[in-house]
């Protein structure tokens, strides 16, 4: 059954990666990053079961903690950009371009 979970995790990760590439709303891009993190968590949890020890679950737990911290800071950055530029599109934040 581990293989099934790994394939599902790979598919979800790929969907998240494609979403990061094609979406331009910064919030949705962020959601896709979260989806990728969750997909890796699924792989960790199924590996933990395959090997019969809990280390994989610990790593998944730490990934969740880091993801929560990342979401807090990332959404604060999106809010700050939205306040100054009135847009949440990743294409509009190009102040360093020229």
């Amino acid at each position: 059954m581990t293989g099934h979970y790994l394939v599902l995790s790979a598919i979800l990760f790929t969907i998240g990666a494609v979403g990061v590439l094609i979406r331009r709303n910064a919030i949705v891009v962020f959601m896709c990053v979260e989806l990728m993190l969750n997909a890796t968590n699924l792989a960790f949890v199924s590996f933990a079961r395959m090997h019969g020890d809990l280390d994989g679950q610990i790593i998944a737990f730490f990934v969740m903690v880091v993801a929560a911290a990342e979401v807090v800071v990332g959404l604060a950055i999106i809010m700050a950009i939205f306040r100054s530029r009135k847009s949440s599109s990743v294409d509009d934040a190009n102040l360093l371009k020229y």
Partner: protein
Amino acid sequence: MSGAVGEAMSGAVAAGAHQTGESAIFWILAVVSVAAALGMILVRKAVYSALMLAAVMFSLAVLYAVNEAPFLAFVQVIVYTGAVLMLFLFVVMIVGVSSTDSLVETIRGQRVAAAVAGIGFAVLLLVGFGHAALPRATGLQEANGNGGNVMGLARLIFTKYVFAFEVTSALLITAALGAMVLAHRERLTPKPTQKELSIRRVRSGRVSPLPPPGTYARHNAVDMPALLPDGSMSELSVSPVIARRRTGTHEDLRGETPEVAARHETATVKAVVEQSVEVEEDETK
């Protein structure tokens, strides 16, 4: 002896039943989560994306529970579907629910290139997994045995991973501080006090609140001005934004424009008011 054999057999039977139940749950949730994930990246509105992500995370929580990780399943529901997605929805509401992505590509051919890259990446990963020789899952009965899953995790966190755990606390504090600093906005003008507000209000010439639309009128649409007790129209009752774009007709005005209808109603109210005044005068006689 025979008891031990019977126990082992019933254990094996239970494991088999567990296996079929697990594959049923897996296939249902795999379809649901992949469909929701695809919907998340294809739907144009950010709110729908957030709700689709909630579906994905919830099905992943159930998959964790099936994978003998009950603690992580609960943490997934509490932290992800509870806290993180609420935060996402909060920001979506602040930024604007109606904000949708425009469909114009800023980089030409980006979507096609992204799709090709995604398919290539998926094929790479899946071929890699296909070649991997995965052993039979050992199961976590032994690891979860001594005090359960939560005890096992706690034992690892506070012994082998205690340093990482401490660093995590520093990370969380830094993130909280960072969010506070980033979300903080410096006030450029001093906040008006209650006294200043009341002085401003008295000086503005109108102390009472504005009349609501539809007072003494036969229509309660927001673009129909209120009729004052003497029968005159009060333009103050219509929001200036609506008054500026007041066009077209209402269904219940029988083809009249709002202005004409309002004038007719003014006349009606005036007639009624004068009549009642006459009646009152009669009564006083």
